């Protein structure tokens, strides 16, 4: 089924890479992808595969080595810099270092493509700027200097800057890379709100696959031989993430949508119990190298319940009790219990 109505960006056999001298250095085979209005799209791929180059090419900082990029059905080559700046905004991984610049001034820079030759901020511009600052909940930081902000606050100010630029598309290169967990989720939440409530199309690269799977509407998965796009679940079902790692020691768990290390198989074990206690115990047993048995076999573990508050391990000859998962795992690792 085609959904051309909402399509805002499409890549047609796009070749990206660098030109050094007369030699063209193409990074990837021709790429095909689409983005719809209001979609939150995560760009995933191993380090150095060309995520940043792709994003830089989309914003027009680098020339495509072949193929086409269409914004609203119009080729990027037919846009002037100024016109393009009214459709798509950009945040790079570069940390902005300017002193004496207030948050308001930074956000006001987003009005660049909308103001006159001297950059005069009219009433209308002022309203857009204040609105962008409100939306990113930076209201109390308005007069603060950018150099005084924390990493997360600065990133929010940068997002406010593209909001003020008033573009339909926002391209962000690893917007959460240098943030702590709280900052990461705050920025992600903001991005999510902007895509769903203000119908901004946000294309961002990230290394946090878990986050991408949980939050994004669509993933552009860059592999060595192609770009695979689709809802995160589509890619999981198609087994696309299995190709992400060449190493055999990491594998993608299609059941849970998580990554785990391939460890030496130590055998099977059954976990008897209910609810989240059972689930987390199974996870720990998994990590210790055991496969979870579907049927009740030996050895087995009984998780804590209303009547007992310990983990009970039953093997062929012994019954042992542990006060915590940690003690249980430590014991399993030390004793290397062999299956029976």
């Amino acid at each position, binding site marked *: 089924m085609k959904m051309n109505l909402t399509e805002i960006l499409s890549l047609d056999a796009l070749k990206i890479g660098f030109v050094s001298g007369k030699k063209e250095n193409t990074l990837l085979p021709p790429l095909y992808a689409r983005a719809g209005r209001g979609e939150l799209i995560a760009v995933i791929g191993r380090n150095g595969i060309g995520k940043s180059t792709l994003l830089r090419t989309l914003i027009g900082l680098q020339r495509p080595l072949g193929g086409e990029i269409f914004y609203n059905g119009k080729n990027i080559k037919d846009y002037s810099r100024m016109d393009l700046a*009214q459709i798509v905004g950009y945040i790079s991984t570069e940390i902005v270092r300017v002193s004496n610049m207030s948050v308001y001034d930074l956000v006001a820079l987003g009005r660049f493509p909308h103001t006159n030759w001297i950059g005069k901020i009219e009433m209308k511009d002022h309203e857009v700027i204040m609105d962008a600052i409100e939306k990113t909940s930076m209201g109390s930081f308005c007069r603060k200097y950018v150099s005084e902000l924390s990493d997360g606050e600065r990133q929010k100010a940068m997002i406010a800057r593209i909001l003020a630029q008033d573009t339909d598309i926002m391209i962000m290169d690893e917007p959460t890379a240098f943030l702590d967990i709280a900052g990461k989720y705050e920025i992600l939440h903001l991005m999510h709100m902007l895509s769903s409530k203000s119908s901004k199309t946000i294309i961002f690269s990230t290394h946090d696959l878990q986050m991408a799977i949980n939050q994004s509407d669509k993933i552009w998965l860059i592999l060595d031989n192609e770009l695979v796009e689709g809802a995160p679940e589509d890619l999981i079902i198609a087994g696309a993430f299995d190709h992400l790692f060449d190493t055999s020691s990491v594998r993608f768990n299609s059941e849970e949508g998580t990554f785990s290390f391939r460890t030496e198989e130590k055998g099977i074990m059954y976990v008897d119990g209910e609810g989240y206690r059972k689930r987390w115990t199974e996870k720990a047993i998994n990590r210790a190298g055991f496969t979870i048995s579907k049927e009740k076999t030996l050895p087995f573990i009984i998780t804590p319940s209303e009547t007992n508050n310990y983990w009970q391990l039953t093997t062929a000859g012994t019954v042992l009790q542990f006060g915590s998962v940690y003690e249980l795992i430590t014991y399993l690792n030390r004793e290397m219990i062999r299956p029976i």
Partner: protein
Amino acid sequence: MILDIFLGSVSIKASEVIKVFFSGTHSNLETIILKFRLPKAITALTVGVALSLSGLQMQTVLRNPMAGPDVLGISSGASLGVAFVILGFSRNISPDSLNGLGNWILVAASWVGAGAVMLLIMIISSKVKDIMTILILGIMLSGGISAIVTIMQYFSNETMLKAYVIWTMGSLGNLTASQLNVLLVSVSAGVILSLFSSKILNALLLGENYASSIGLNVRFSRVVIFVCTSILAGSVTAFCGPIGFIGIAVPHIARILFKTSDHKVLIPGTILTGGAVMLLCDIISQLPGSESVLPVNAVTSLIGIPVVIWVILRNRKYTGSF
């Protein structure tokens, strides 16, 4: 408001200058003031404005807080242009005797020299991001240029050599009326051009990638700033010699005074501060109340160097110093 206070302080300083002049002399008061003191004050003002503005633009475009016409060898480039004219082509003509066309040739040579070095620095800056590397290259460039000038001096005759050496000391008072006209016209052109550049410079604050992403034609902008700084720094150097540390220090003083990074404020602010600082330097170099006069270059260095040192030290502690 700060702007108004500052405007006031400039005029106060200007009036102080006049007062100093009045109290220092008793005969031919009018001639001295109108024919000598006033042109000198105007020259000082113009020089301060031009050097400071070119420094501000270079610092923003190169994203280098240590950029300035003298530090990066732009002034040296202009000197080379001047040396070619004084020592090379116009035999037996000293800069004092130049007029009309000759002055324009001198200025043009200076622009070309300044422009050539500026172009080189801009090309290197786009490849090398490290501020210190650029600075060292600027120093090397200055060294190379003065070596060439020394060779030219070696092969030139005594009167021309003397004219050139006096020129290198930097002076605000030796301009003829026609030279002052040329200086005023070309600096005005540079100032007008720079007023148009405030939006460009603001966009460039975040670096060229961001500037480009918000719709700036970076290549065109670089050309505008390039022309502007070459005219401003070149014109001053042509007539007043290489005057140090004003171009690098004043933009920082303006940033402290106006507490902003917005060039809509910084450009007028730098113009005012530059004019005021240069007038102050001129007053100090008069040594009010005494007979002797200091070379203005020594005064600007003494005022500028502490600012530069402060910027270096602050740059170590904080992120960025624009």
